[in-house]
């Protein structure tokens, strides 16, 4: 298994230990996650690679409080995701966790600047970032009034990253951010992710197929049949 460094609670972005997730596949029970342990420090940018169906998405779902594991502990900041109620999970996702989705998944009705305002309307946010400043940070200030269909794939992904950071989350979960991008845009987007993770001290977990972007990451892990293992050569 992987890292077992003992961090103090304040220094933990994400802490998963002994996490097992089962799901039924016909009559068989498949271990989507098999005794997975993973700790990500604030500001650390970790990539998880692996073939489809290896459990990468399950890892994000469990770390993001979207599914509860069948065994193990999951902690984001000082919030325990396993014991939290459904309602509390929504609050934890809203305030502590940022998601960056495959194709950005922006809302078609909203302009870039409104995409960033949206997370702040969902409920009380302790220290919201300034939407315009955030857009500037991802190089999209001049596109503030454009809607998603007026943006390129790379631009949409930049807005998606900015949106995920609006509430100053402890943990940023990134799902195949380069799936819809050419290699130049892929490099730019992942470089941006690395920069934001380091700058804001956000523990970041990125799931990807794309081995060409791994050199931006602090650490790379390999997922195989629900098991997580470190990869040495980056």
């Amino acid at each position: 298994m992987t890292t077992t460094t003992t961090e103090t609670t304040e220094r933990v972005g994400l802490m998963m230990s002994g996490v097992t997730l089962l799901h039924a596949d016909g009559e068989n029970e498949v271990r989507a996650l098999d005794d997975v342990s993973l700790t990500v420090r604030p500001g650390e940018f970790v990539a998880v690679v692996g073939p489809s169906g290896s459990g990468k998405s399950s890892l994000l779902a469990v770390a993001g409080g979207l599914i509860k594991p069948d065994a193990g502990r999951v902690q984001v900041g000082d919030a325990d995701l396993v014991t939290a109620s459904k309602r509390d999970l929504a609050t934890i996702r809203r305030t502590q966790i940022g998601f960056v989705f495959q194709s950005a998944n922006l809302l078609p009705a909203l302009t870039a600047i409104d995409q960033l305002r949206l997370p702040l309307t969902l409920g009380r946010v302790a220290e919201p970032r300034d939407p315009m400043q955030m857009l500037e940070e991802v190089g999209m200030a001049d596109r503030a009034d454009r809607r998603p269909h007026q943006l390129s794939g790379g631009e949409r992904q930049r807005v998606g990253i900015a949106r995920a950071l609006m509430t100053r989350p402890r943990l940023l979960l990134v799902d195949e951010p380069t799936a819809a991008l050419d290699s130049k845009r892929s490099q730019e987007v992942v470089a941006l992710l690395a920069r934001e993770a380091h700058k804001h001290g956000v523990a970041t977990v990125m799931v990807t197929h794309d081995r060409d972007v791994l050199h931006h990451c602090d650490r790379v892990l390999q997922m195989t049949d629900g098991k997580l293992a470190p990869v040495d050569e980056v």
Partner: protein
Amino acid sequence: MFLALRELSFARGRFALMGSVVALIAVLMVLLSGLSVGLVNDGVSGLKKLPVSSFAFEAGVDESAAFTRSMVEIDKAEMWVDVPGVADAAPFGLTLVNTRTDRGVDIDLALFGVELDSWLLPTAATGSDLSGPGQILLAGTLADEGVAIGDVVVVDQIDKELEVVGFVDGQHTFGHVDVGYVDLSTWQEIRAGARPGDEVPNHVYRWVTAIAVLNEGDAEPDVAAADEMAGTTTMTLEESFGASPGYTAEVMTVQMIQWFLYAISALVVGAFFTVVAIQRRQEIAVMRAMGASTGYLLRDSITQSVILLVVATAVGLGIGLALGAGLSATEMPFALYPSAVAAASAFLVLLGLVGAAFGVLRVTRVDPLTALGASR
């Protein structure tokens, strides 16, 4: 509100389409409401304007045709006056006749026969009050149709002549026919088919259509006991509307159309918001993953449907009222009552919301997991 308003403006074409359907239904609602009130007025406005609490008809009379069938002895009025809680009771005659004025205007009339000193008799708004046999006091609306004071109205077949002495104010109709007040004895002669100069047998003067009863204030007389005692069947004024020709059928037809419209509107709005919710599934999943609570998503979608319904209904209401103002000026039986129109509009919005709720509730069933790439 944040998202609801931005989506309304972004997808304005789609929402405008839906809004027009609701607005058109609202227009139809206003017109039907006007027609319904108009038909009611046309059917029973003459009765509504009588200062009457109830009518005592012949015992066991067919209630849907009481005014045309009932025959009550005139002296039962005295029996009714003595009933506790009854302020006054007076004989009342009603019959429908075809007439023609001496200037050649054909008019159908509902003749209301009342005693000259009766509390049932209205005062004239123009001309003079009814003061003797052979006179007639007409509904004000007839003045617009070429009838004037001093004209003589001739009852078809029996050639009975009635002199127009005045008009009462406003619309007085019964069964879509204008009302004319005549002296009770004159009414009894016409009802008996007596021609001028005929020898009228005494028994003709013993019968009237009903005894009109006026209660004392809010008193509720023991109607069953009084009916038993006097040998009558009593209907309240409102109940007696059903005895006006065609009244029940007309009111029911219009009401049925209105109910269908409400149902159609609720279903159409429901279908629309269901489709919108299905189309937004991915968006909703993303918002849920971002931590949007069910309450937030419901509030947002419901705000959207309220805005759509209220704006569309208001627009429809405006168009309907404008059209209605035009219709009121025509021969159509059409009258808009603010309370009826307001109730219809509120109901349209309310039922639309019930429909929308069915679509909107789908947002609660979206799994945030679908926001993540493929399956786990």
